[in-house]
């Protein structure tokens, strides 16, 4: 177990493609950190640099107090789970899991003890004699995890380990990974492009975009206090609505949308938003904060009318899509509220959860 520290790390591929553009990240011992971001943002590259599979163009990577820039993967004492598992097809499950220990010349009984223990933990004892080909996707996934666990390494690295599984199994394995980390709290770096996986698993989420880190923080913090427009739009599903707006003074500070709707800014935020009066801004508001109206609203809730375009019942909630001056907007309402296309639906907008983005810098203010 160890901490990992990434300092000003740059990765440039030939042809001057900068996949990672100087990132800094401190991961403490036992922490579960998830790198998340859209495809091609440099997540895998970062992980592979930690593993030593990819050379570092500039900067330093520290594992457990040592610079490992020039240490080959086999001496870094890390374990990695690949997206397509990369199990050795010619070895049995037992041999797959034991391979790393055999190479490190562990005594036979110790190898057997550790493999059995890991197999029990992952519930694959009855598969030990099989070849990977004879396993289902979820079982292969477990074996790949077992191969990582038996080594008892300083750091676990996962590269989109669940993306080859079907939706149901993905949810189940997600829980198991979390359980595994509670049982064996090894420092973990986990890569995914699925923000739900990131939110559910992580102690801290690292949101990457175009080779830079947009924001690092606990899942709840990223959800409630995104730092940039990108993070605001990336975290949360369905995604946050972005509405072009202006701040106006109309008997108190108000947000004026493109279609003329005005909604008051909650009093505690007036000072914070005051300086942005008259600038081009964007109002960020999550679908769950645009809901059906109630008779008595709590303070800070404003009203607007929506001309319903599409209704999507999800069971525990209903998604309603509509437009504000040509911009698509989604809101989440109680499934008991009946509405249909073309109808006018009054909505309650919880301005206590609004976000205001400055268009010039794309930062949340």
């Amino acid at each position, binding site marked *: 177990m160890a901490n990992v520290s990434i300092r000003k790390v740059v990765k440039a591929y030939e042809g001057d493609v900068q996949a990672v553009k100087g990132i800094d990240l401190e991961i403490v011992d036992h922490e579960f950190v998830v790198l998340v971001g859209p495809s091609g943002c440099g997540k895998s590259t970062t992980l592979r640099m930690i593993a030593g599979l990819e050379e570092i163009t500039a900067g330093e990577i520290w594992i457990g107090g040592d610079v490992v820039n020039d240490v080959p993967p086999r001496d*870094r004492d890390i*374990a*990695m789970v690949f997206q397509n598992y990369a199990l*050795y097809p010619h070895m049995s499950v037992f041999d797959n899991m034991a391979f790393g220990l055999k190479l490190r010349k562990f005594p036979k009984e110790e190898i057997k003890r550790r493999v059995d223990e890991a197999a029990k933990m992952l519930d694959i004892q009855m598969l030990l004699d099989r070849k990977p080909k004879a396993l289902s996707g979820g079982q292969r996934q477990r074996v790949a995890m077992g191969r990582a666990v038996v080594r008892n390494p300083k750091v676990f690295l996962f590269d989109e380990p669940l993306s080859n599984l079907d939706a149901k199994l993905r949810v189940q394995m997600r829980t198991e990974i979390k359980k595994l980390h509670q049982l064996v709290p090894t420092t973990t770096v986990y890569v995914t492009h699925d923000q739900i996986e990131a939110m559910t698993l992580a102690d801290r989420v690292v949101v990457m975009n175009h080779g830079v880190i947009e924001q690092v923080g606990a899942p709840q913090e990223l959800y409630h206090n995104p730092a940039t427009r990108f993070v605001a739009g990336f975290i949360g599903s369905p995604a946050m609505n972005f509405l072009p707006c202006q701040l106006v003074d109309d008997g108190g500070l108000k947000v004026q949308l493109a279609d003329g709707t005005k909604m008051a800014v909650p009093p505690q935020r007036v000072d914070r938003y005051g300086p942005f009066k008259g600038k081009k801004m964007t109002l960020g508001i999550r679908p769950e904060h645009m809901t059906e109206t109630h008779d008595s609203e709590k303070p800070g809730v404003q009203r607007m009318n929506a001309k319903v375009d599409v209704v999507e019942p999800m069971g525990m909630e209903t998604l309603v899509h509509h437009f504000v001056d040509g911009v698509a907007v989604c809101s989440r309402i109680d499934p008991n509220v009946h509405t249909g296309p073309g109808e006018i639906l009054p909505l309650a907008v919880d301005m206590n959860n609004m976000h205001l983005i400055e268009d010039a810098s794309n930062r949340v203010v």
Partner: protein
Amino acid sequence: MADGSTMVVGAPSAASTRPTGSMKMLARRRSMAALALCAPLILLIVCLKVYPTFYAVYLAMLDRRMNNFVGLDNFAFMLSRPSFQLVIFQSVFFAVTAVILKAFFGFVLAHLMHNIRGRNERVWRGLLLVPWVIPLALSTLTWWWLFDPSYSAFNWTLNALGIEDIAFLGSTWSARFSVIAVNVWYGAPFFMIMYLAALKSVPDQLYEAAAIDGANAWQKLVFITLPMMRNIILITVLYSLIVTFADFDIVRILTNGGPQDSTHLFATYAFTVGIQSGNIPRGAAVSLFMFPILATLAFFVLRDVMKRNKELS
């Protein structure tokens, strides 16, 4: 081709009326057409391979004048002759040594090729394939000239280094190794190209996983590359053993079996006995000695390959 296209045009109308029946008919017509198209080739194989094989078996059981049936006498006689025992030894020695060396050099070259990335790779691969595409008889003549005791480039080079001439083809063991060397030179590119294809098909992630598991380059070779390539190695070695056992050109041109019949292989010896000395039944008997050896080899290795194919993939 014309046959096939008319069937396709005719099919839809028939299919719309009676789908199952017409599908069956189509299938039957297709297999008939396939048979018709293959027939010339099958006929050719029967004429050139099957018939001569059985004819050879028949010939091998006649006496020298080819009018009396003598059963297995020819085989028994050959086995009892020291000169033929030498041929058996040399054939086995030649084939096994040459195949091992070909496989080894092919493997090394394939690894070199695999690690030369970029545009040069194709050039090098092309150059290394040259021995394989030159007609063997011609290139063996060139080797024969290179091995010449007095005027050859080899001995000239040795002289320049202060070493005395070597009569490459003049003494038993140096002749044996010369013959093997030419066979290896000719056959290694085939192994290289097969192993290169096999190497390229091993997923990079397995090596990455092994690197993380703690394997060094040698351990990756032993625990990943070799097991993953086991099938292709078996098949190429078997195939090459068969071809090398049956080799004719190199020995015929380079040494013609000499010195003192020490480099004769089954094929060249059969030719010498059967055609040059005119004892066709004995020649046929000699060539048939190869058959059980190769058939057994083929059986075992192919069985193993099938089993492994089911496990992997």
